[in-house]
C-alpha cells in the first residue's frame, strides 16, 4: 500500500508543471508550509516556504522587504539573496523547500519559480574534539553542518586543487554527502572507485558516517577498519595532502578518510608537531603496544600452562606461589579478568564524569585486589590484564583498539590449546587475512605486506618532513622538493 502511494507521488513530482497546489499536496499539507501573497508593482507574487527551516529574519529583510519596494519587474536584480536558482519542476522546487529555500512564483506565469536561499543555521560553535585529543595540535573539531565542515577543512588546506563534489543520497529522506580531494595529488583511480561506490548506494536514509562506511568498505568480514573516521580537521587535511579522499556527511561530525591502511590508524597530529625523534618514538610505542595488547595474554597462558621451562626459575617460583591458590586454569582465569574489564570499560562510557572517579576506585582497585585475595585470579594474571588494557588504551583510534579485543580471545584460546605453536598459528592466520585486505585497491597492510622498506619512513618511523619527498603510493605524481635544509650547506664552516 505504502509503496504504491510512494510511486504515485513520484510520478506527480516528476510532472513538469510547477503548481502550488501540487506542491502542497505532495508535502501532505504539512502545517509548517506557509505561503504569502505580495502585491507589488502591479504584480502578485507568491512566496512558499517551510516555516521551521527558514530564517525568519533573512526572509523578512532580504526577500519580502525588497519585494514590496520593488520598482521594476526584474526580480533577480532587486533581491538580496546570495543564491538564486530557477525551479522548473515540482521536484526541484520541493527539494529546494526541504533544504530551507523559499520558492517565489509570479502569479499568472506558473511555469517558472525562483528558489532563494533563506536557510536557517543552527550550527553549534566549533569546539575541541572530545575523543581524539592532542597535546599540541589545533583545538578545532568538526561540527554537524556540511558547509561549516568544508569551511573548516578549506581553511587548513588552502589550495586551488581542493575539489568538492556533492551527492544527494537516500531515497526516502535525503542527505548531502561531499567528496573532497586534492586534484593532481590523489590517484584518479581511487577517486573513480569512490565515486562509483557512492553512486551505487541505494539506502532509504543515511543516518551517520557508519551507513556510508558499511556500503563502501572493501571487506565486511574483518575486525580491521578500512576507513578512518576522524573529528579533527587537521588530521583530515594532512591525509588529503597525502593523497587521500575525505567524505563529509551532512549532520555528522565525523569525517570519513579513505583509503586508510593499517598504519594510518597509528598516526596522530602530534607526531608531526613534535620533533621527529619523539614522533618516531611515540609511533613505535603505539605499534609495540598494539602487539603487546594482542599477544601478551596469549603469551602468559602459553608460558604458565605449557612452557614453564622458558621462564627463568626465580620467576617460576614467585608465579607458582600466587597461582597455587587459584582453582581455575590460566585460560579461565584470564577470561574472567578480561570479561570483568570489558564490563568496567562499557560501564565507564555511560557514567557521568562525577561518578566516574568513584567508579574507577571501586571497580578497578577494590575489585582487582579483592579478586586476587579471594584466590579467583593470580597476581600474574592481574598484571598481564592490566598491562594489556593499558596498551590497548594507547591506541589513538577507537576502532583499531577494538580489533585487539576481537582478535585477542581466539589467540588466548589457541595458546591454551597449543602453547607457543598456537600463538604462531593465530599470528599466521592474522597475517594471511591482512595480506588479503585492501582499502580501495590499496594493500591494507601496506609497507609490510607487500614488504617495502622505502615506505617505512612515514609509517613505522616519522622522518623529518623535508625528507618525505614523495608522500605516499596514493599520490604517484606528487613530489615535494627536497631543498628545505639547503641553507645548511651555505652556513657550513671549514674545520680549520
Amino acid at each position, binding site marked *: 500500500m505504502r509503496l504504491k502511494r510512494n510511486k504515485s507521488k513520484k510520478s506527480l513530482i516528476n510532472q513538469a508543471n510547477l503548481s502550488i497546489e501540487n506542491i502542497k499536496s505532495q508535502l501532505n499539507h504539512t502545517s509548517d508550509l506557509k505561503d504569502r501573497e505580495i502585491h507589488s508593482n502591479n504584480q502578485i507574487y507568491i512566496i512558499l516556504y517551510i516555516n521551521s527551516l527558514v530564517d525568519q529574519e533573512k526572509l523578512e529583510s532580504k526577500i519580502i522587504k525588497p519585494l514590496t519596494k520593488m520598482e521594476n519587474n526584474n526580480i533577480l536584480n532587486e533581491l538580496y539573496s546570495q543564491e538564486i536558482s530557477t525551479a522548473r519542476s515540482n521536484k526541484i522546487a520541493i527539494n529546494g523547500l526541504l533544504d530551507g529555500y523559499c520558492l517565489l512564483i509570479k502569479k499568472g506565469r506558473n511555469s517558472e519559480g525562483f528558489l532563494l536561499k533563506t536557510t536557517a543555521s543552527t550550527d553549534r560553535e566549533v569546539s575541541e574534539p572530545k575523543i581524539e585529543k592532542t597535546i599540541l595540535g589545533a583545538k578545532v573539531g568538526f561540527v554537524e553542518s556540511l558547509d561549516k565542515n568544508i569551511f573548516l577543512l578549506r581553511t587548513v588546506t588552502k589550495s586551488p586543487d581542493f575539489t568538492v563534489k556533492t551527492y544527494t543520497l537516500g531515497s526516502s529522506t535525503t542527505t548531502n554527502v561531499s567528496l573532497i580531494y586534492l586534484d593532481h595529488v590523489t590517484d584518479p583511480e581511487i577517486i573513480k572507485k569512490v565515486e562509483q561506490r557512492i553512486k551505487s548506494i541505494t539506502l532509504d536514509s543515511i543516518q551517520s558516517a557508519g551507513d556510508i562506511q558499511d556500503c563502501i568498505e572493501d571487506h565486511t568480514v574483518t575486525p580491521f577498519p578500512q576507513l578512518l573516521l576522524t573529528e579533527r580537521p587537521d588530521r583530515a587535511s594532512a591525509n588529503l595532502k597525502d593523497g587521500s579522499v575525505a567524505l563529509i556527511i551532512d549532520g555528522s561530525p565525523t569525517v570519513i578518510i579513505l583509503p586508510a591502511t593499517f598504519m594510518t590508524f597509528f598516526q596522530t597530529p602530534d607526531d608531526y608537531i613534535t620533533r621527529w625523534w619523539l614522533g618516531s618514538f611515540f609511533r613505535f610505542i603505539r605499534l609495540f603496544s598494539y602487539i603487546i595488547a594482542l599477544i601478551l595474554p596469549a603469551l602468559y597462558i602459553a608460558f604458565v600452562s605449557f612452557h614453564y*621451562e622458558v621462564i627463568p626459575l626465580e620467576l617460576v617460583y614467585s608465579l607458582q606461589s600466587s597461582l597455587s591458590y587459584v582453582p581455575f586454569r590460566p585460560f579461565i582465569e584470564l577470561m574472567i579478568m578480561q570479561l570483568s574489564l570489558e564490563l568496567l570499560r562499557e560501564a565507564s562510557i555511560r557514567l557521568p564524569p562525577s561518578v566516574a572517579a568513584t567508579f574507577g576506585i571501586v571497580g578497578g582497585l577494590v575489585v582487582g585486589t579483592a579478586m586476587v585475595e579471594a584466590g579467583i585470579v593470580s597476581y600474574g594474571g592481574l598484571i598481564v590484564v592490566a598491562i594489556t588494557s593499558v596498551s590497548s588504551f594507547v591506541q589513538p583510534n577507537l576502532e583499531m583498539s577494538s580489533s585487539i579485543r576481537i582478535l585477542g580471545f581466539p589467540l588466548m584460546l589457541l595458546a591454551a590449546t597449543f602453547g607457543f*605453536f598456537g600463538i604462531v*598459528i593465530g*599470528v599466521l592466520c592474522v597475517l*594471511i587475512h591482512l*595480506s*588479503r585486505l585492501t582499502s580501495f585497491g590499496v594493500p591494507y597492510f601496506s609497507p609490510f*605486506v*607487500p614488504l617495502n622498506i622505502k615506505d617505512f619512513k612515514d609509517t613505522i618511523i616519522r622522518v623529518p618532513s623535508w625528507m618525505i619527498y614523495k608522500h605516499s603510493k596514493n599520490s604517484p605524481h606528487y613530489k615535494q622538493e627536497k631543498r628545505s635544509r639547503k641553507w645548511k650547506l651555505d652556513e657550513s664552516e671549514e674545520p680549520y
Partner: protein
Amino acid sequence: MKVKSRISSENLFFVLVQTMMGVGLLTLPHQTHHAAGSDGWISILITGFFIQLIVLLIWLLCIKFPNLTLFDFSKVILGKMLGTVLNFIYIIYLLTMICYIFIVYADILKRWILPETPVWVLFLIEFVLLIYGSICKIKNMISLLSFPFIFILFLFFITFFVYGDSSIDVRYLFPIGSSGGWNILKSTSDSMIPFIGFETLLIYFAFIKQSKTISALKGVFLAVLFVTIFLTYIVILSTVMLSPEEIKITPEPVLYILSAMEIRILSRLDLIFLSFWGLIVFTTIISYSFSVSMGISKLIRIKHNFAVILSGTFVLIVSIIFYYMEITLLEKWLKHLSLIFGIIIPILLLLITIIFKREAASTYEKN
C-alpha cells in the same frame, strides 16, 4: 594459457627465499656432517654455486616461453600426450614434497614442543592453514610471502645469543678439507635437500615482468645467494658449537644448541625458535600448494579453490598414512627426487627445446 598477473623481481626474491627455507635447515648440519665431516660448509657453498647454474638454465628455458608456466610449455616441448604425463608426474612430485614437509614438521613439533598432542591434530592444523593460505590470488600469496622474511632475520638474530657460550671451539672447523675433495663433492647431493624449492621457479618465472632482461634474474640469484649464506652460517655455527661426536648423535643440531642457551629473561630459546620457524615452514607449504594447485587446475580443468582443497586432502591422507605406517621411503628418495625434478628434467627440456627448436606455439597465442 598465458598467465595474466605480473610480479616484480623483488617479489620473486621473497617467494624463492620462503620456498627454499623450509624444514631442511633444522636437520642440515647433521646430514652434512654425516657426509662430509667438518667440511660440511664447503659442500653447502659448492651446492649453492651449483644451484645458481641450474637456476640460470631454468631461466634460459623459461624465457623461450614467456608467460607460460611449466604446466603449459611442457606440452609445447613434448607434445600433448607426453606433456600431460610430465605435468602429472610433476604434480605428484610437488605433492610428495608437501607431504614430506608435513611429516617432518609435525614430527619435530611432537618431539620438541607438544609431546602429548596426537599427531593427526597437528596434521589437521597444517591442512587447515594450507587451505586457508592457498585459496587466494597469486598477488595475495606473493605479498604474504614477503613479510615473513623479517622473521628469518629475527631468527638470525636469535642465533647471536649462542656466542655467549664458552663451549665454542673454532678448531672443530680445522683442518679445512680434511675429508678429502671427493667426499666433499659427493656430499653435495646430500646438501641439495635444504635448497629444494628452487624448482618452483619453473612455475613462478611465468609471472615475472620483462622476463628477458637480466634484472629479472637478479632476484633469483640474490635469493639463492641469501639461502646459501644463511645455510653456510648455520652449518659453521653448529660445527663450531658441537664436537664431531655430538653432531653424529643429534638429529636437529640447531635446536639442540639453542635449547642449551639461557639469557636473563628467557630460557629454552629453541621453543621460541621452533615456533617462529613454523611461520617460515608454513609459507613454504603455502607456496608449494599454490603452485601444485595451479598445475591440478590446469590438468583436469577445475577451479583453483577446488584444486587447493583436492591437493590439501590428498596431502593430509597420504601424510597420515605415511606417518602412522612409519614409512621412511620419502626421506630416502628425497635426494634422488630433487635431483631428477629440479635438475635433470629441466636440463632435458632445455636440450629438447634447443635441438628441436621449440617455441611458444601459435596455438597459445590464440588463447
